[in-house]
């Protein structure tokens, strides 16, 4: 009897172990539960705050902090409904046109479509996929920067690799500027989509704003079942949708190449073939890339014109990031042999571009490439950088900003590009050895951005290397470098006398008492831009030295010092007639009355005074 029982028990045990671990059981239970919930009436709307910030292009805060960083956008509001400049919010790195005005800014690409305004983006993951009915953004300071809200069909929290990733625009608009810096809840009317989503992307353009925009939280409202509305809408063909679609981009040239009997219809080009070749080329140069590709399919003559490599000396694929794939690069490849400037920023994520697609394009088109913009390209790996180093011998500009998943080892390949003049490594994991070897071999560097590079251990060493090797340096961005001291700064300014732009924002280890800022002013007579943001030691004598030595100063940021008085500021404003931007936020001696008075006396200068209420 007992044996029988124990055998029976053993069988049970086997079954139990086969039925899977407890963890699996739990998830299956959850699945059952969620299945039950799905049976609920359609009208039940789910409201959720962002669960996680997945990706973003830039932020004001430091990488290992929670002040002014993009991660603050997850969860419920911290500040709303208050308005003001608070640490708990998400803030981008730039605003207005101040950064674009600088010499260090990249040249604008031609053929940017009219509707593309985005400068920054953030991607947010939500707990549960829903059919969105509303998106609400809590903007707590200088609202108006949102230009696009998109939804993705891919679930960022699923384990499976992304396949067939679709992005739909829920809302898009022009950059605006709110009348006041007051907080607002932005909830535009959104388009209904026919897939559930828990991944939103918000794109921003802060160029019209008077100060940094601050965001507090994002709500995604939606229903679990496809709303009937969307079902009805589906079969309708939306004209605007089609005209915007870049699907043709991927089969560009396809219909024409194989057709051998094209010559039979060649006489029908009307008067177009009477026009000089160059004139047609000039006309075509005003078209956006998708239009160019569409036109190529209209007739043989225009096909020839549209495929002329001279039309593709500069190519910005950034506006088309949602649909760019290996295949589309492959189709463009044959036309881009004279390519000089290429913008691949934001493209290729979630498996859209691969090493093989990228390297075959670069092999075909890299020879004359001068400028390569690749910010936030998370498909990049060490092998990709090796390909760039091998295929682009003439490269002068490289932008890898916010490629924060790129392995530190990869950056050593950059040193094989001897003609580099502009290098942007903002928010990357570059390490000290790599930057030192880059500085050793790339001696023509003019613009260098090392902002928020947290892996560099000793910025003083980097600064002295810069002083020794990069004598022609024009701009240097050391935003939030942890440990640059007066020793490094002194060496830097005595070596790089050509410096015009210097960003030393949030470098807390620089002490004015060592005289380093005064020495900076004396050594850099050509200085146009100086950011000493949140250096608490900047004092009157520094400002007076700047006034005396740097007459061409245009942008100055001395946010957060208690030691600067109105008198020295007035002196500065008088002796720097070209001054355009002066940020004196949180300078305790400069109250709003002083700012108003100075603004009245110097109307050409934008004097910024942020507030926290």
């Amino acid at each position: 009897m007992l044996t029988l029982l124990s055998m029976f028990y053993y069988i049970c045990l086997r079954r139990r172990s086969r039925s899977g671990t407890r963890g699996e059981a739990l998830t299956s239970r959850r699945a059952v539960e969620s299945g039950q919930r799905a049976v609920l009436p359609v009208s039940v709307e789910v409201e959720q705050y962002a669960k996680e910030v997945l990706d973003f292009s830039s932020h004001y805060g430091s990488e290992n902090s929670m002040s002014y960083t993009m991660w603050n956008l997850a969860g419920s509001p911290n500040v709303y409904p208050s308005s003001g400049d608070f640490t708990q919010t998400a803030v981008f790195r730039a605003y207005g046109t101040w950064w674009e005005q600088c010499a260090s800014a990249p040249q604008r690409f031609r053929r940017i479509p009219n509707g593309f305004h985005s400068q920054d983006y953030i991607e947010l993951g939500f707990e549960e996929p829903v059919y969105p009915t509303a998106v609400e953004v809590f903007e707590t300071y200088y609202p108006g920067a949102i230009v696009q809200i998109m939804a993705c069909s891919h679930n960022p929290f699923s384990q499976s690799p992304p396949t067939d990733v679709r992005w739909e625009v829920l809302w898009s608009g022009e950059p605006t500027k709110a009348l006041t810096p007051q907080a607002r809840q932005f909830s535009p009317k959104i388009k209904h989509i026919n897939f559930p989503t828990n991944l939103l992307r918000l794109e921003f353009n802060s160029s019209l704003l008077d100060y940094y925009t601050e965001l507090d939280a994002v709500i995604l409202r939606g229903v679990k079942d496809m709303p009937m509305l969307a079902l009805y809408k589906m079969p309708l063909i939306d004209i605007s949708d089609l005209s915007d679609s870049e699907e043709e981009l991927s089969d560009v040239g396809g219909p024409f190449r194989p057709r051998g009997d094209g010559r039979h219809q060649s006489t029908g080009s009307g008067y177009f073939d009477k026009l000089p070749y160059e004139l047609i080329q000039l006309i075509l140069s005003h078209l956006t890339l998708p239009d160019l590709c569409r036109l190529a399919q209209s007739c043989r003559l225009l096909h020839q014109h549209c495929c002329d490599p001279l039309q593709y000396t500069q190519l910005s694929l950034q506006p088309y990031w949602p649909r760019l794939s290996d295949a589309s690069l492959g189709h463009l490849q044959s036309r881009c042999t004279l390519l000089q400037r290429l913008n691949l920023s934001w493209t290729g994520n979630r498996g859209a571009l691969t090493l093989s697609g990228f390297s075959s394009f670069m092999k075909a088109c890299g020879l004359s490439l001068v400028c390569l913009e690749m910010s936030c390209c998370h498909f990049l790996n060490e092998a990709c950088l090796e390909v760039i180093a091998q295929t682009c011998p003439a490269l002068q500009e490289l932008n890898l900003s916010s490629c924060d998943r790129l392995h530190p080892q990869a950056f050593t390949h950059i040193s094989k590009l001897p003609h580099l003049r502009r290098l942007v490594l903002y928010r990357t994991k570059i390490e000290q050895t790599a930057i030192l070897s880059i500085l050793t071999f790339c001696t023509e560097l003019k613009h260098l951005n090392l902002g928020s590079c947290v892996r560099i251990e000793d910025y003083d060493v980097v600064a002295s290397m810069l002083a020794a090797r990069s004598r022609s340096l024009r701009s240097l961005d050391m935003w939030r470098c942890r440990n640059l001291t007066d020793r490094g700064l002194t060496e830097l300014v005595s070596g790089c006398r050509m410096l015009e732009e210097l960003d030393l924002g949030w470098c807390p280890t620089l002490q004015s008492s060592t005289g380093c800022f005064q020495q900076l002013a004396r050594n850099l007579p050509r200085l146009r831009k100086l950011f000493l943001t949140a250096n608490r030691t900047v004092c009157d004598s520094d400002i007076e030295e700047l006034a005396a030595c740097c007459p061409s100063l245009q942008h100055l940021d001395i946010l957060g010092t208690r030691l600067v008085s109105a008198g020295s500021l007035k002196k500065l404003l008088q002796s720097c007639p070209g001054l355009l931007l002066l940020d004196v936020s949180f300078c305790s001696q400069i109250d709003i009355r002083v700012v108003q008075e100075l603004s009245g006396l110097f109307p050409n200068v934008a004097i910024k005074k942020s507030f926290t209420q």
Partner: protein
Amino acid sequence: MVVNGQTPVCTRSFVSGDNMSVRREPSGTGRAEPNGRIKADSQTGLYPETRRQGMLSVLSYGRLVARAVLGGLSQTDGRDYSLITASYGFGKDFRKGILKKGMCYGDDACFIARNRTADVLGVADGVGGWRDYGVDPSQFSATLMRTCERLVKEGRFTPSNPVGILTSGYYELLQNKVPLLGSSTACIVVLDRRSHRLHTCNLGDSGFLVVRGGEVVHRSDEQQHYFNTPFQLSIAPPGAEGVVLSDSPEAADSSSFDVQLGDIILTATDGLFDNMPDYMILQELKKLKTTNYDSILQTAQSIAKQAHDLAYDPNYMSPFAQFACDNGLNVRGGKPDDITVLLSIVAEYTD
């Protein structure tokens, strides 16, 4: 509660083995938290235990013993603990019991926060001397506490490392655009729900008591540089770095302690400890009978009130006055100061 959830597992397995796996899941996990604790229990300890019992003894006995074993186990470490906390305090200038902005009493600040894994409390006492430099001392302590609260709420901490909370809280103060000045003592108490351990850190003369059965079983150590000058976190104005006392957050005294259900934890600033000796505090705590929030708040109120009254009694020989006399100063009476009291009871965790 766990017992109820667990026992059907073994009983059903005896009775109807076949559909056990189907029926077991909802009953076994239905009332448990989705946190893996059940998993650990059932897979490592409990299940083999019951099996052995079942095979060795007669059926019914086995069931009974299994139940007892299960019950015993869950009694000791099955349940999660949490803190029920009430706060009360007084600002020095008779701004009685009113929170200024956030949780502030005068220059004192405090926070009560909870996270998935832990309950965290903190008090900070802004050093009043900064008022002479035109700096509001409460700004520093309040910002420090608010920052720590955010760190906890966003899960940017490990319960076993309260010094870490203080360190990153202090670091975040430096990341503020506002050029903060000031200094503050700080005390942070973390209860790890699962392990039932109380992790604490204390910098300066604020502190906490753990009271069990009417006796103090664990307490913080006071850290002072010299009389009436506690250890303190500070941000000094430029040029005065060497002059202003500034201790690193790592200098905080940290400890860990196992708590039991019903333990009382009193966390307070020096305004309380300087005016009320232990025996008076214990006397007040004896009145606390139930674990509901209102009665805790009431007790916290009466403790804070009593300390407040004593602080303004010129003839009372307060612990502070006693300590002053030990240091060769002839002082009598209470010590008027901001008083912040956080009173917590260790209770079973409920959602």
